[in-house]
């Protein structure tokens, strides 16, 4: 039972990644691409944290409950892996900053070319290049 639910969870996350990849590659609108990109990043983060989880009961967050050696014994037996969490925390915040950069680039593209649709954008870019030659 546990193995079944566990594999359903992992496959669901992989399916979410697939759907977001479809969004990144096939949708024409740049804003929609950005939304798909964040879904992709979030799902990848969740998958990384999921790999640090332990399938035991009880399970505890990686914070020492009290400062004694006895507590440490049970703590090491129950706590989840802290390393993926530490990596994901920075990934969440830095990912947000990078998304801000992408969003600003999209707004600037809209100002310069008047569209955020990739098909029209490629046409306009060809026009600009042709004009210069």
């Amino acid at each position, binding site marked *: 039972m546990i193995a079944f639910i566990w594999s359903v969870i992992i496959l669901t996350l992989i399916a979410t990644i697939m*759907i977001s990849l479809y969004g990144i590659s096939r*949708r024409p609108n740049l*804003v929609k691409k950005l*939304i798909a990109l964040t879904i992709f990043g*979030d799902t990848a983060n969740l998958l990384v944290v999921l790999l640090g989880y332990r399938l*035991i009961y009880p*399970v505890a967050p990686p914070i020492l409950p009290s400062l004694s050696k006895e507590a440490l014994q049970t703590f090491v037996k129950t706590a989840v892996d802290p390393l993926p969490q530490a990596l994901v*925390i920075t990934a969440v915040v830095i990912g*947000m900053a990078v998304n801000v950069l992408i969003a600003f680039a999209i707004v600037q593209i809209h100002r310069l070319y008047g569209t955020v649709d990739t098909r029209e954008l490629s046409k306009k870019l060809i026009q600009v290049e042709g004009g210069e030659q």
Partner: protein
Amino acid sequence: MIEIHLLMLLITVLIGLIFSYLAIIEKDLLKAIGYSAIQAIAYAIAFYILMAPDIVLAYIAIAVGIYSALLVFVVSKTGRYEVV
């Protein structure tokens, strides 16, 4: 007992899957942002079930608040509808 945790996790992850699908196929971008926010809330609960309270604190503020606001700004500056 661990099954209950896993079942709750499964439900949140499925909600995440369904709403990210809806967010990606939706043509009205403001609605897509709403769906994406719901997906973010589901993932925040998933992080909590996975015993990562640190990430929950950062993720809630960023993915539900700041990120949606950023996208609303971008949509208001570019255009509301996606033409497929």
